[in-house]
């Protein structure tokens, strides 16, 4: 073991989310309500980062939560944490919404308009979860600038890696590998899978 102390992720606090999902699969609305309380904040926060528009973001967050209710029985606890399962759905839906809404020309304009904005300087402050945020920030600082920008432009802005390559004026192949090795470095820093 290294001397690094890994803070427990959000999944280890509060109610056991796996049990709540299991009861939700049963049609237990009360359990779903508690599951909602645990994940809705992260869902809406992530969706809002990608979509920006508050009204649209709430709409997508609502869809995601209903999808959680609908597919609770399909969640496989051995495959990963509940938060990752829910946020993967949330991110996919937010990105699909962005891509569907944007005609090719709009997207080019969007790339041009947003390429100068640093992607990680506008975190909404909230006391709860500050430790996690601090740890995430610390780990992000451990990435090279190219790794960090590639990962964050894709994850928080919903850009495709082709768009990211254009924005960073970097060859496609390089962006592809930087996203991957950036995530590997983040994964190790956050202690995921260890």
């Amino acid at each position, binding site marked *: 073991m290294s001397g690094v102390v890994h803070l427990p992720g959000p999944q280890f606090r509060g109610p056991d989310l796996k*049990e709540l999902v299991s009861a939700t699969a049963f049609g237990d609305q009360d359990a779903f309500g508690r599951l909602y309380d645990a994940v809705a904040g992260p869902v809406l926060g992530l969706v809002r980062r990608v979509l920006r528009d508050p009204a649209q973001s709430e709409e997508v967050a609502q869809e995601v939560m209903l999808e959680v209710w609908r597919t609770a029985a399909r969640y496989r606890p051995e495959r990963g944490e509940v938060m990752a399962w829910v946020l993967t759905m949330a991110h996919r839906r937010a990105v699909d919404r962005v891509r569907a809404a944007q005609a090719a020309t709009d997207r080019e304009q969007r790339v041009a308009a947003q390429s100068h904005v640093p992607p990680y300087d506008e975190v909404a402050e909230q006391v709860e979860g500050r430790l996690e945020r601090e740890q995430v920030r610390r780990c992000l600082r451990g990435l090279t600038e190219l790794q960090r920008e590639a990962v964050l432009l894709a994850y928080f802005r919903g850009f495709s890696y082709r768009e990211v390559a254009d924005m960073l004026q970097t060859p496609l192949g390089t962006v592809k590998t930087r996203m991957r090795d950036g995530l590997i470095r983040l994964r190790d820093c956050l202690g995921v899978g260890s």
Partner: protein
Amino acid sequence: MTDTVDTAAATADLHLLTGAYATDALDEPERGRFERHLAGCESCAEEVAEFAETLSRLGAAEAVAVPPELKRRVLAELVTVRQLAPEAHEDADSPVPTDRVPRRRGRAARQWPKLALAACLALAAGLGGLAVQQHDQAQQARARAARLEAQQAGFSALLTAPDARTATGTVRGGAVGTVVWSSARGQAGFLASGLPALGADRTYQLWFNDAGTMRPAGLLPGSGGSLLLQGPLDGAVGVGMTVEPAGGSAHPTSAPIMLLAFA
């Protein structure tokens, strides 16, 4: 810049797309191509799962306060969204669009006997002599479907009982089991997901725990599903689950893999 690569290089290339895939940065048709690759590449799937976990930490750090109306809207919509059945989780990873239809449990079960009977009658018309046998089979099918329907109806009734309570536990390996019970109805139901699949010669069996004595409460074949437990609650203090020979046993023949208390 265009990619002109041979097949081997293209496969190596696909491996490198785990990061872009996990961040949803692939457009179609590349996303589809990578998902097909993922189905047969265990190390890629593992990496994608770890990246999903990693990114969820980034996402969760973005949590915002949620307007209370949103929860009210979501809860109000629940009745319009039909939940997927637990049994069919083999294709859990394929994203399915939300279908909003009024929730009606056991619809397939209700339709089945009619279809089975119609098919048998059609056969009987052509084959005369076989009619009696076919009719017997149809009756069996009908009886089975009726039992299924009664199960479903019983389960729904149990879930909506005003005093219904649940307890959940995990089995080694990550499977999850939940028991729901109602003292007023004197009934209990059980749901499990993610149980390891058993061979055809074995089955999961549920038991009422009468303060240490196990009373048979039904069989749960396959790797999960829901079951209205057979027999009354009486003084049971909980339920247990064991692995038994196919057909079940009168008494447990192995140590319980899960015990849940009615508490």
